[in-house]
């Protein structure tokens, strides 16, 4: 019985071991041949809407509580792509910050109504301790979000 329990524990550790490697894969491994440049994607998002694409960039921020989102920037370090998954579908680690990320999935578009944008910016301004003028929000806000099927964190 003791031997059986020890063997079962060893087997579990051996099968689990690949999860503790330097490269971390979440979901399916990105396999598409071409990579869309981040600048190109951020400048012309509508061109890539709802298409299966592969993108590469550097993670600049990760959801600190649930690991359910990640912000990724390109090599020119301007602009950011919001990568969002359902809670628990993938859990991005905080250690991804500053690492090279390869993503595969679809870019989606949504519109936040003006009153919601005002509420959001009001809350952000309060948190940051600055004044907020609702008249600076001119209209609805278009938001692009990347829904990945696979994320590879390198390094």
């Amino acid at each position, binding site marked *: 019985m003791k031997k059986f329990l020890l063997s079962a524990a060893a087997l579990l550790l051996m099968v689990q071991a690949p999860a503790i490697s330097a490269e971390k894969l979440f979901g399916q491994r990105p396999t598409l041949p071409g990579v869309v440049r981040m600048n190109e994607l951020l400048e012309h998002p509508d061109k890539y809407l709802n298409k299966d694409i592969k993108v590469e960039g550097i993670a*600049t921020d990760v959801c600190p*509580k649930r*690991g359910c989102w990640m912000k990724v*920037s390109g090599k020119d370090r301007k602009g950011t792509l919001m990568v969002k998954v359902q809670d*628990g579908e993938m859990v991005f680690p905080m*250690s991804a910050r500053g690492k090279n990320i390869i993503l595969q999935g679809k870019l989606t578009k949504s519109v936040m109504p003006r009153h919601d944008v005002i509420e959001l910016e009001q809350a952000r301004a309060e948190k940051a*301790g600055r004044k907020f003028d609702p008249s600076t929000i001119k209209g609805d806000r278009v938001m692009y979000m990347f829904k990945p099927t696979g994320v590879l964190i390198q390094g």
Partner: protein
Amino acid sequence: MSPIAADSGTEPSPKAKKPKKRRPWTYYNIIIHRYLGYLFLGITVVYAISGLAVNHIEDWNPNYIVEKHHITMSKPADPANLSEAEGKQLFEQLQVKEVYNPSNVFYPDESTIEILISESEKIRVDTGNWRAEHESTRRRPVLRLFNALHLNETKKAWTFYADAYAIALLLIAITGLFMKKGKKGIFGEAGLWTLAGMVIPVILILMYSP
């Protein structure tokens, strides 16, 4: 002559086995309940502690200790391009010990500058009021690992173990129903306790069902 010898005509052999006494099903019920309880005690503790921690995720961060402190920096000459001297000065003001690396400065939107210092440290500058926030994070030593197991972040073999645990929990619950001795068993006081525990979940299921 002994009465036995008189009945059978021979002495019983000392090697002859006694007929096996058939054990009642309640014996196996207790055995299953007890040993599954022992086997999965450790993981039950992990799930319980992590459950408490994750339940209150809105109020605190169960995985990381996040420390923030703020300063107000002077407006840089070109807000869209922080110079190396300005970056180094900001590091000094925030008492950051790491070496400033200009290639780790990002401009995610018009009102934010972000400087990645390490995987656990960063600076976020609000260009609306030039308030700089230095954030450092570190893993909660044990709880982070408990949560990773509870939420099955590692997937792979842990999924099988967690499945086995789920089945074991079902068995522990079912066998637990029949642990009460006496004539009434589950149909007495034990049944009332069981029903009482179901009331709130059932009400919530009915409330939230479409």
